[in-house]
């Protein structure tokens, strides 16, 4: 079992508040990814769960048992650190065995666990080497192995891939996903990389400035971001956000107008909006298409076209200096040339009110 | 694994075994202590032994030194001593003229102060010049630099007693120095019983013993000066002497200041090698303050611990001023001037 419940967690260092009343429920066997920009408090939250730090206020429960004042060692969790934190003076085998020896596990059992973990993570050939003799990827596996042999209630991973090069990161990411599937143990994973979050998570927690912005399954966050921050944070390239004015609003539809001749009716609950209100319209670059200039399209001047082969990332500028990025599934977009016409499909639009909150359809 | 390596590993394990065993035994009560008191309690535990020793043998003496200096008598335990207020200080500082030791009530103390002052001036000057010259030479492209560095460093590790005895042996009547003098047709001399030569010997021997240390500090400073500065000066056709005065010396100044102040601090405390070399003699011509404190406090028949303590506090004040100077200088030089 590995159900972790956080209730109203606060953490302050002196006068500086790092976490503001975090409530979170992590289900057994779930892969939960904490994502957010650096300094948002996600690593602090992970250290609180680990028991390496104490909350100023609030309650942490594991499987219904209050562990707020239980030491790290006794929580039955395992952690993978960003720097791997392998003991440099011990061999890989000793690194794996250290935690088990500390709980006085019989030697035979320790050996069996190490053998199993080494086989699973393919680190058997260098069990007798020191961490200094390993490559970054190998160290990473050892760090995971050290967590795996403990057979923990839950794994805590603090940006485990951030020290790997791009290629290795992708393959290790896939292996981590496979490992999670196989062990079916709760994992709490901290990253600032939204791609990692999207690919790995059962659920994502987006954090900013010590607060949770949104919790949900990856596609839910992508398709229905709860606010401007989540909209901007999830998805690459970032969602385009355009300032618009409400021209009419009803219970099922809001009509807005914006720069570059933008005029669209978005399916949304407009009861909270009224004529003339400022709002923000969001549309993802991948949802924009080239148009023939018919109604509902906008005019924009191309400033940069990045040809990636199957698609072209077009950076354009609209009236009022509003930038727009579009990913077009075609080649041959000219930088020098007359303004182009882009279609923004209304059914793919997201509407946010002046406070930055999503105006959902009813 | 070879036989020797196996044996070595086995011996290592055998030696380590009791220590490891002891450490694991210690761990058991400490775990409960940790559970009971948290990391704060553990910090206290780790600090305790060092701070206890430090407190008993450094802080307590430091504080009661002031009480000592306000008492008289020959007893060492504070409760057996009589309170006399500032009398000891009055006695030390009672002088007709501070320049003439004969007019002082405690003339021996002022003799020691004068001697120490002379010693400090001569030793600091000689030390700075000699170690600077050596560092400059070692900083040149010299074949076997680390060998030469070691040559000059070697006496630093010798004990003051050994240093004193070596030189006493060389400077004695039938010694090596007189052999050299004799071979050059000169008149052998009793170096250590002559006021001037005994003083010169004390200064030179202490420079001999410690110059390697200061050379090392200066050499580190010289090597930290970027090479390209010299190359740029060479491109400009700067004369070597000008390079020294305008580039080397200003950039070396922080290290040089540290060396001067450190030498100063240690010269004020001069004791052991001079004591072994000359025993303070001839007469009192090489009696220095620390030896005065030692003799008045312990060795002399007329011992007076209160007076020694007052003298040591006066010397301590001088050292505090010098150390604060050093910290200021050291911070500017970004060099830690730690010493024992």
């Amino acid at each position, binding site marked *: 079992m590995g159900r972790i419940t956080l209730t109203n967690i606060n953490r302050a260092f002196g006068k500086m508040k790092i976490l503001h009343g975090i409530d979170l429920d992590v289900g057994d066997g779930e892969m939960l990814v904490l994502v957010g920009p650096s300094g948002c408090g996600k690593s602090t939250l992970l250290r609180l769960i680990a028991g390496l730090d104490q909350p100023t206020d609030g309650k942490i429960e594991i499987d219904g048992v209050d562990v707020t004042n239980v030491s790290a060692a006794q929580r039955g969790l395992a952690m993978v650190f960003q720097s791997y934190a392998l003991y440099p003076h011990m061999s890989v085998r000793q690194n794996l065995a250290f935690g088990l020896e500390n709980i006085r596990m019989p030697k035979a059992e320790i050996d069996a666990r190490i053998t199993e973990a080494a086989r699973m993570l393919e680190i058997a050939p260098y069990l007798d080497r020191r961490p200094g003799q390993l490559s970054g990827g190998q160290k990473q596996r050892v760090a995971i192995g050290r967590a795996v042999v403990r057979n923990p209630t839950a794994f805590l991973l603090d940006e485990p891939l951030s020290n790997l090069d791009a290629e290795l990161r992708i393959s290790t990411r896939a292996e981590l996903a496979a490992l999670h599937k196989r062990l079916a143990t709760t994992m709490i994973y901290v990253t600032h990389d939204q791609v990692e979050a999207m690919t790995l998570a059962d659920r994502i927690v987006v954090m900013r400035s010590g607060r949770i912005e949104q919790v949900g399954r990856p596609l839910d966050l992508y398709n229905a971001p709860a606010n401007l921050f989540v909209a901007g944070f999830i998805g690459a390239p970032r969602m385009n956000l355009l300032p618009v004015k409400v021209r009419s609003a009803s219970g099922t539809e809001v009509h807005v107008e914006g720069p570059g001749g933008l005029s669209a009716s978005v399916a949304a609950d407009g009861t909270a909006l009224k004529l003339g209100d400022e709002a923000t319209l969001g549309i993802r670059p991948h949802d924009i298409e080239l148009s023939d200039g018919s109604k509902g399209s906008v005019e924009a001047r191309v400033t940069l076209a990045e040809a990636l082969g199957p698609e072209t990332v077009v950076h354009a500028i609209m009236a009022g200096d509003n930038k727009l990025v579009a990913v077009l599934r075609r080649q041959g977009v000219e930088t020098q040339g007359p303004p182009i016409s882009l279609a923004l499909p209304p059914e793919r639009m997201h509407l946010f009110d002046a406070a930055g909150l999503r105006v959902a359809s009813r | 694994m070879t036989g020797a390596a196996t044996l070595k590993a086995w011996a290592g394990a055998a030696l380590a075994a009791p220590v490891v065993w002891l450490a694991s035994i210690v761990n058991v009560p400490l775990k409960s202590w940790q559970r009971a008191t948290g990391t704060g309690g553990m910090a206290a535990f780790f600090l305790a032994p060092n701070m206890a020793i430090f407190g008993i043998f450094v802080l307590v003496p430091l504080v009661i030194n002031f009480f000592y200096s306000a008492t008289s008598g020959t007893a060492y335990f504070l409760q057996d001593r009589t309170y006399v207020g500032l009398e000891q200080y009055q006695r030390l500082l009672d002088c007709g003229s501070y320049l003439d030791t004969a007019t002082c009530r405690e003339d021996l103390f002022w003799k020691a102060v004068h001697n120490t002052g002379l010693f400090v001036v001569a030793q600091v000057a000689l030390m700075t010049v000699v170690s600077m010259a050596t560092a400059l030479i070692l900083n040149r492209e010299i074949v076997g630099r680390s060998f030469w560095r070691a040559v000059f460093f070697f006496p630093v590790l010798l004990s003051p007693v050994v240093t004193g005895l070596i030189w006493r*042996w060389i400077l004695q009547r039938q010694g090596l120095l007189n052999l050299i003098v004799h071979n050059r047709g000169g008149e052998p001399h009793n170096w250590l019983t002559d006021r001037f030569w005994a003083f010169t010997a004390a200064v030179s021997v202490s420079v001999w013993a410690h110059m390697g240390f200061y050379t090392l500090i200066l050499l580190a400073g010289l090597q930290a000066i970027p090479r390209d500065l010299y190359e740029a000066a060479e491109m400009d056709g700067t004369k070597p002497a000008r390079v020294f005065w305008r580039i080397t010396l200003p950039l070396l100044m922080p290290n040089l200041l540290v060396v001067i102040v450190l030498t100063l601090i240690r010269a004020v405390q001069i004791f052991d090698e001079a004591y072994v070399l000359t025993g303070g003699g001839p007469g009192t011509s090489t009696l220095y303050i620390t030896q005065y404190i030692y003799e008045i406090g312990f060795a002399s028949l007329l011992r007076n611990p209160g007076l020694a303590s007052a003298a040591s506090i006066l010397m301590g004040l001088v050292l505090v001023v010098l150390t604060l100077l050093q910290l200021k200088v050291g911070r500017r030089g970004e060099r830690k001037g*730690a010493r024992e």
Partner: protein
Amino acid sequence: MSGVMTFLTRRRGGRGWHWTDIVSWLWLLGGLVIMFGPAVWLVGSSFKTPAQLAEFPPTILPYVSQQAKVEGYDKPLTLYRVKLPDGSTKVLAEVRRVGIVAQMVDPQAPNDIVKVNIADREPMREIGFATENYAEPFVHFDFLRYLRNSVFVTVMATLITLLTNSMAAFALSKYKFRGRDLTMLLIVGTLMVPLSVILVPLYSVVGAVGLLDSLWGVILPTVATPTGVFLLRQYMLTIPDELLDAARMDNASEWQIYWRIVLPLAAPALAVLAIFSVVWRWNDFLWPLVVLSRKELYTLQVGLNTYAGQLNVQWHYILAMTVVTMIPVILVFVFLQRYITSGIAGTGLK
């Protein structure tokens, strides 16, 4: 050979010799003589017999007089080359000496005593080492005991220094607690309190805890070195905190973290401190001199000074024992010099 010379005389940029090069080399060679010369002279002298030590001018190398066993005499007799009145020279053995006249015998004809003016003879000598200078002080004087005391003081003080300083440095570098900076300040602050300033009160404190005239009284006041705490703390600050957190997740107690993680990782700094501590404690003089009054507790340094301070200095023993006292430090110098010089260059520690 010319290759070697070119190598030894090469200069920056391959230019010719400059007067500063000559000055430099003179300085270095002069330094070599002045720095090593006295020690070499000491070692050489330590092998000379008392008679030879009293000679002037002294010889460079140690010699011993040749002796021969002569029939009719219990002890071996010293041999001399004697110029006889007839102008010939002969090797004779001295039986006894009265004033300037020596009674001598021919080893081949031991019954005839020849009287010789001592100006007409020269001792027969060969290079030899008076090793009894070394053996005697150990056997007949207390030097073996002094040596044992010195070793005991050095080893115990170094072990305790390493343990207590590293524990304190661990707390000061890896824990946050109230008063940490104050503690550090206090420790660094006492760097400016040398022994000579607290000599009298320290003596009474050591007396009050009953350690006067005991080796522990020599050891304990020296072990809480501020330098050691400072050096180790600086080093431990470079050990990443994540390693400690990893160990905490691995069920390690704080003691185990200190013992099994931090201590092994601080080994380079511990080695430097150990070397310094050995040299400091071995060389300590003033404090043992004050604390120890019973002769059998003297350390080598105090013992040496005492014997060298006697009216009738037995230089042949003193010199030999000085060499013995030098040996550990020479060993440290030869094998560990690199650690020391880097330690000093890094921290200004001595």
